[in-house]
């Protein structure tokens, strides 16, 4: 093959952006270069000073009813103006749209990570009117400290409803949330707490109220708070006041800063952002940074990205279906422009993630979707991913509605003539971030039923159908599922 096309980004720079965005498209590559490289771009992203793209800001207007106060959402549902399912689906579609259009990549990625840790499904019966507000709260704290994030989420009405903490009261404890705060949200089972300590944890959480039968109004009632000394791990408190919230704050702060929490979060971050089986040394370093900074999220992430094991883990992660459909849209330059009805492209992405078996916020239990990538590589999922590429890789089609599709010429090289093999190489750099290998070139030639040596004079020499098949096949290379 003649000299290939240069990569969009240096591999090390690309690696940071691959892991902390939903797909490196030409625009993001420009941003990384303008920032002075992957690490500098990452720092810029952590600063919170990145201006959001106008397109992402406009997404808020697509779903005007999503952010109404929970009791109002509930009354609309009672009057038949809105269903639980709609409310859940809109939150999912909005999230997918933001992931596709955002310029605040690291923020969006971390919102996803924390949402999956402090997990409340969308459309769950006891929490649904509050779920969009829960999303707002996670967004607010996603790059702050975990201590603040934990307090804001554990005491949020969505969590209260989901893990039945409204039923947890003086004289009639309900251990649901008290247990999961320990097991899932903070220290984990390895911390070795007893069933008595689960009870103490539940006791600290009493007092919150939520009317899940009619209004969905939330509050706090000191009458329902169980007072009395508590001990959980190395935390003790007199818990003597009728209002238990200060005691609870102290408890959650203690849990957030606990070494077991540091280890557990470090491991989970490493599984998400480094590899399914991350090196222990990296996990240790990340945990140390977390503890020393008092659970500061940017400091923790810096330790992860700066560790040599992070740099060595290029292309080791596979994308889950929700990440993959957004990635597909991003690298193909598809920008959703609205969600007027079910035919809109953004809804196609949600349906496609569902067909492939994994939609954010639709995991049924409080542990969130598994962070391991390899678990999503079921044969059926792979078949559906392969099929979906060709739905979206052309210039037009039944699923390409309410979406801006880039022109063919804008996605192809400037300089012609080129052989088919060279065009494949160009597309491979653009869509996969690597040069085309021989099996890929052969697969494209076979699919188009023309020799790889065929010379093309310009974009118009590639029919729309061939353009679609070429791009779909490039994305179907094994690398297309990796990051």
């Amino acid at each position, binding site marked *: 093959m003649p000299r290939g096309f240069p990569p969009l980004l240096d591999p090390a720079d690309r690696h940071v952006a691959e892991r902390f965005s939903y797909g490196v498209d030409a625009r993001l590559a420009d941003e990384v270069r303008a920032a002075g490289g992957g690490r500098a771009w990452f720092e810029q992203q952590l600063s919170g000073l990145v201006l959001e793209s106008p397109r992402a800001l406009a997404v808020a207007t697509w779903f005007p009813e999503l952010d109404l106060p929970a009791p109002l959402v509930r009354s609309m549902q009672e009057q038949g103006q809105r269903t639980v399912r709609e409310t859940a689906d809109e939150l999912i579609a909005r999230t997918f749209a933001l992931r596709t259009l955002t310029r605040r990549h690291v923020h969006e990625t971390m919102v996803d990570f924390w949402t999956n840790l402090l997990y409340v499904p969308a459309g769950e019966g006891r929490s649904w009117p509050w779920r969009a507000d829960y999303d707002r709260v996670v967004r607010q704290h996603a790059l702050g400290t975990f201590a603040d994030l934990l307090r804001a989420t554990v005491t949020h009405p969505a969590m209260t409803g989901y893990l039945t903490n409204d039923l947890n009261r003086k004289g009639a404890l309900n251990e649901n949330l008290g247990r999961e705060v320990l097991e899932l949200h903070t220290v984990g089972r390895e911390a070795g707490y007893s069933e008595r300590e689960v009870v103490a944890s539940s006791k600290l959480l009493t007092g919150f109220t939520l009317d899940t039968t009619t209004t969905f109004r939330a509050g706090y009632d000191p009458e329902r708070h169980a007072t009395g000394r508590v001990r959980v791990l190395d935390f003790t408190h007199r818990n003597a006041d009728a209002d238990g919230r200060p005691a609870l704050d102290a408890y959650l702060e203690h849990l957030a800063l606990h070494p077991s929490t540091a280890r557990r979060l470090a491991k989970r971050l490493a599984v998400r952002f480094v590899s399914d089986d991350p090196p222990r040394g990296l996990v240790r370093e990340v945990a140390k940074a977390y503890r020393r900074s008092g659970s500061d999220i940017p400091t923790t992430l810096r330790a992860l990205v700066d560790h040599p094991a992070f740099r060595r883990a290029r292309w080791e992660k596979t994308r889950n279906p929700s990440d993959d459909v957004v990635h597909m849209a991003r690298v193909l330059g598809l920008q959703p422009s609205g969600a007027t009805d079910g035919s809109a492209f953004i809804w196609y992405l949600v349906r496609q993630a569902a067909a492939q078996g994994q939609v954010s916020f639709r995991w*049924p*239990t409080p542990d969130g979707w598994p962070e391991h990538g390899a678990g999503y*590589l079921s*044969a*059926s999922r792979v078949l559906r991913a392969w099929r979906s590429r060709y739905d979206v890789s052309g210039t037009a089609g039944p699923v390409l509605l309410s979406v801006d599709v880039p022109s063919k010429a804008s996605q192809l090289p400037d300089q012609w003539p080129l052989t088919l093999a060279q065009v494949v190489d160009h597309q491979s750099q653009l869509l996969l971030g690597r040069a085309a290998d021989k099996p890929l070139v052969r697969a494209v030639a076979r*699919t188009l039923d023309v020799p790889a040596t065929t010379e093309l004079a310009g974009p118009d020499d590639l029919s729309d159908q061939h353009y679609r098949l070429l791009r779909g096949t490039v994305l*179907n290379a*094994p690398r297309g599922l990796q990051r």
Partner: protein
Amino acid sequence: MSDPTTAAHDDCGCRDFTTTRRTALALGAGAVTAMVGDVLTHTVYGAQPRGNVLVVLSLRGGADGLSLVVPHAEKAYYDARPTTAIPKDRLLHTDSTFGLHPALAPLGPLWTKKRLAAAHAVGLPAPNRSHFEAMEVLEDADPGSDARIGWLNRFVGQLRGDSILEGVQVGSNVLPTSLVGPRPTVALESPSSISTPFAGSERGDAVARGLAQMYGDGRSRVHRAGREALELARLGGRYSEAAALPPQHSASYPGSALGTSLRRTAALIRAGVGVRAVAVDSGSWDHHQNLRGNINTRAGDLASSLAAFFTDLGPDWRRVTVVTLSEFGRRLPENGAAGVDHGYGSAVLVAGGGVRGGRYHSRWPTLRDGRLESGDLTVTTDYRHLLMEILQARFPGVDAHRVFPQAGYRRRLGVMR
């Protein structure tokens, strides 16, 4: 391609297998499809000799065994559950100790025909009241090893069949822990779109060859998944066809997720694609509140889905054994929300081929003070021993001790013939 349905069943020499065995067709099933077309597909495959099937139905959340199979002779049960205990006169198929929850009524015919049994005080070897850890322990079932390999994967691995569909999760595209491991297994959310792009056209053939080229030799997990996908595409059509037909024998499934999954499981079994182990999930068995209403709904759904499943299977029921599993039972006493929190021992239902049905099997520990585990029903039958008993009865060629390496020996409960 060799016909996967003609391999991997000779390790089953059991009675039920031979009764359904008919004259094997000399042709591979694929060739038959090509010759006779879709119309006859079902009947033709229906005549294929096939082996026994194990269906593991996971009741996710921690099913309350004390409500499903009620120990009505225990005063302690009625004392601990003032608002949620089921009165004895409402129970079905009572013996001197136990009775079935009234919502299980659709299973009555199976019970009467002795195709359904219940086991009690079954569970993990040690209490674990965490959903996630208990489920992981239950499905990995190899406490001596750090490798994340599930027991169904070890089981299917021993069958040495060549069908990618030998071990299947129906109803989700994500593999449960029980199926994860070195033997390729498949999670199938639905029977649609199980084919390569443009399948059935000339273009489709070219695309499939291109994919085979790209995924052919690589050793990464993604390459392996691609090869499995190509293999699945070769069999998927038969499953899709079987699933497109209405249920057989006038079976009527509820529209629930479980009903849908079991309807698809029946189609998968009928399709003759070499399936031997199926994992099916039923969710929402976490009864922290409103036990009474929750168990009514869940048990009703379970019973009507399972009843329809066995009706649908027709004579094939003899080669299919269903077992329900849950990560733990519930607390004996009610909590403040008329619910029950996480407990320990639970009940298991076993139905279908090889079952000594119409009776309760238990080394019942009672609910007396000294016999409880932290106040809850204890476990006298390690779930692994129950599963080993099923495997030994239904898959004599499989070494159950290699499926559950650390389980050791224990006298059989007698659930299986």
